[in-house]
């Protein structure tokens, strides 16, 4: 009986180790297939990203990896919304992007609890219909403080996918 339990434990241990190896190996295999299927143009772009990534700090690498994990932890709907927002953001003129960045700098300077409050309010407001959210947005100090050009940009970015 004791031996059977020991064998079972050892077998489970071996399987567990194997599973970790398989998870890594599966990702590697999938990435290889993906790499093979890429066009020369895409490969060029990835290699440029790789060089930039390689020369970046460990913090940035870790942030990118963490964002990757967080993104894949989101619902498909949220993933699509973020991708669409990214597309909108990328399509902005450099000056427009700068305006967005400048507004976003406010977030970084906020105390942690204000940010948490904003996250809570967002979790509550996101369930509202789009027109109701638009009304709320127009009543906010943030909105009132925007120029007409910025309003156009942020309306597109905030109401992505609606």
């Amino acid at each position, binding site marked *: 009986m004791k031996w059977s339990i020991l064998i079972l434990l050892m077998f489970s241990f*071996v399987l567990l180790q194997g599973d970790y190896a398989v998870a890594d190996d599966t990702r590697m*295999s999938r990435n290889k297939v993906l790499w*093979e299927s890429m066009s020369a143009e895409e490969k060029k772009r990835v290699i440029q990203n790789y060089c930039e990534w390689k020369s970046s700090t460990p913090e940035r690498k870790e942030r990118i990896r963490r964002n990757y994990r967080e993104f894949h932890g989101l619902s498909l709907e949220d993933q699509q919304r973020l991708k669409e927002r990214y597309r909108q953001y990328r399509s902005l003129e450099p000056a427009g992007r700068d305006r967005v960045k400048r507004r976003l700098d406010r977030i970084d300077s906020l105390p942690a609890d*204000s940010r948490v409050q904003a996250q809570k309010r967002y979790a509550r407001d996101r369930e509202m219909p789009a027109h109701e959210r638009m009304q709320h947005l127009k009543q906010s100090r*943030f909105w009132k403080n925007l120029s007409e050009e910025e309003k156009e940009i942020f309306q597109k970015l905030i109401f992505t996918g609606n």
Partner: protein
Amino acid sequence: MECKVIREMLTAYHDGELADEVVRNIEEHATICHLCRKGDLELNDAWHILEMWEDIDPPGKIRMEVLSHIATQRKMRWAKFVIPVAAAAIVIVVSLVFRFAGLQHEKQNQMPLPALPMQLTAQHLDFNEDELIANLHVLRDEEFYDTMEELVNIDYLPLIDDPKQMERDRQRSSLDAALT
């Protein structure tokens, strides 16, 4: 002494292994107890028969069989420990072999990596293709993952009420307007 105790000691009595006092007790008991006396006589007869028994050397073949049987039994004692250990080792080895044979098979089935354009590899001397492929899932959309936090933060902007910051923004806007 009780009969039960006496009968248990009868063999030792006949072997002369008991103390004089115990011997005397047994002999006294035997004079008054019919059953113990009978048991003593039967044991005595058995001893006589055994003494008449001649020690005969067994034929070589039987001797060999008995000795080999004893040796087998001794080996079996080791086997009690060796078999489960061997079984555990076999289970581990087999599972490892299957696991890694599967991985090897998977690897062999994959086509070799396509050659990279020469100009690209030449440009990037510290280029490591394995490292690139290991991180391809991230690198493919590196810029997106790099800006992801900002994209998420856009949702929080209208929900932040920070009068001080707003005042600073107002001042900055008026300064911008004055400069332009």
